[in-house]
């Protein structure tokens, strides 16, 4: 349990702080197990064989994120790691770990900025739009990280992974997660098991800083996605880089051009 002297942490320390709360540790394990339990059976249904499989399980981190906040972020990362053990692990899975961490971390953080007190299961047009924005923000940075990492290690090209992952994540987030969330969220809220009830000691930053962070996140992840695609497909040859660098598999140009955008997105995420 958290000692009284340790209350009043800012939101960026949530990811560290949650490990001191036994209930959050258990919820992290449950989020991970639920994610892996849906992930593993679908390992045999490849969407693009050898690249990624059909992942209805990707609805779970979104649902858990709105419910359990930081516990869902770690749960998503651990659940994906367990899933990877059944489909083959590779050095690229280190990036997969962090990509899934942000996939479970971003939705509730974005909701805290744009949600304005609205419930994520509200059926108003503005709530639906905000939900789509939150899921898209999470999906794009998740795809950027895996595409960037795998292209850096020359395992798979960014243009292949980056787009498939966004499609896969958004399909689950839009077609499955809303139904599960609508059924589960009111019950969890009633049982006072939402992350806000579990970790009341976490303070949020001032709204102005969080809006700046959100803008940085969107700018960073959009830039990373755009330039990652253009570079890895050989559609853009930056003149300021040596010509010798601009050859397949484009790992060096991606490292030089996409990395700052990834860092910008992370800086924004930490400010939120």
């Amino acid at each position, binding site marked *: *349990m958290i000692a009284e002297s340790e209350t009043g942490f800012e939101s960026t320390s949530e990811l560290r702080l949650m*490990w001191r709360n*036994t*209930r959050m*540790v*258990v*919820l*992290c*394990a*449950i989020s*991970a*197990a*639920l994610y*892996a*339990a*849906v992930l*593993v*059976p679908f*390992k*045999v249904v*490849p969407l*693009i*064989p*050898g*690249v990624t499989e*059909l992942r*209805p399980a990707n609805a779970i981190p979104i649902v858990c994120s709105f419910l359990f906040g930081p516990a869902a972020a*770690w749960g998503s990362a*651990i*659940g994906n*790691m*367990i899933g*990877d*053990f*059944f*489909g*083959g*692990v*590779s*050095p690229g899975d280190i990036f997969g770990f962090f990509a899934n961490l942000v996939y479970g971390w971003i939705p509730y953080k974005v909701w805290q900025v744009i949600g304005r007190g609205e419930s994520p299961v509200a059926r108003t047009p503005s709530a639906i739009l905000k939900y789509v924005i939150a899921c898209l923000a999470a999906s794009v940075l998740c795809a950027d990280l895996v595409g960037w990492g795998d292209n850096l*290690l020359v*395992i*798979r*090209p960014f*243009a*292949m992974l980056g787009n498939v992952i966004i499609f896969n994540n958004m*399909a689950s987030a839009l*077609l*499955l997660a809303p*139904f*599960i969330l609508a059924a*589960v969220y009111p019950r*969890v809220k009633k049982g006072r*098991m939402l992350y806000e009830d579990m970790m009341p000691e976490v303070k949020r930053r001032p709204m102005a800083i969080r809006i700046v962070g959100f803008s940085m996140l969107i700018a960073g992840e959009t830039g990373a996605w755009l330039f990652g695609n*253009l570079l890895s497909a050989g*559609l*853009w040859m930056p003149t300021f880089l040596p010509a010798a660098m601009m*050859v*397949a*598999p484009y790992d060096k140009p991606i490292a030089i051009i996409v990395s700052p955008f990834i860092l910008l997105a992370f800086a924004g995420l930490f400010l939120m």
Partner: protein
Amino acid sequence: MPIYLYIDRGTFVHRLHPTVKVFALFVMFWSVYWVDNPVALLPVGLVMLWIAQLTGSWPNFYRLRWLFAILIFTTSMMWLVFYQLGEPLFTISLFYMNPHSFSVPLGRFSHTFRWGGHPVAVNVTWQSIKFGFGRGIKLAELLATSVLFLSTTKIEEFTYGLQRMRVPYRVGFAISLAFRLVPLFIDSAVTIVDAQRLRGYDFNQGGPFERIRRYVPVVIPVFMGALRKANNMAMALEARGFGYTHEPTTFIEYPVGSADIAAFAALIALGAIYFLLYYTGVGGIGPVK
């Protein structure tokens, strides 16, 4: 799809210290990472086949045989398209991409990005074939590494290994608990699917997305059941002193033996040899003409 791949055989690989096994996983990744040439990947592949024979892991490889085949084929094809260096053996024309551009108006830093305006074709070269096939073999070897690791390592050994590598106890505990909960949740889901089928609910109606959506009524009870467990589990853990900051004691002890030291030395040698293959250029696919 099997949940646990562990095969209890009691071979010397099974008996190795968990830290050595986790280290072996990293060394295999390291070794495979440095080389691109399919021929250079052959020795480490042979080592894996030898370990598979020694540990009796073939049933797991047989279960995943299609995954291996698909992985090699699709990865080779993918890099054939994206890696087009060297003298073309032949060219496959795909389509003509119209010219596109977009401008970023930033005063004197303004820039116009242009792409397209050329035919899109796949140049199949000797280098792209070697590179693509090498990537396919590489990913298959990484998959084989994880199959061998899971065939010979229990979950508690894996988390013990992580803790010895300075992963915090609570993180290790969450990983271990999650591993153990996966089959429980799958079992509950299967029971709910059977119950719904008995009531006449058809899971196979509609297209692929509709079929997936029809599983939503299965996920919700599993989810709620899991949450009901969470509170009790947290109370049980705290009653047993989980909240204390110091590391708890364990019944499981893994002494380090001579086999562990020999395996550790062999792994270091393997990692070093593969780095040398990269460093001397032997592991590459040769110069691009």
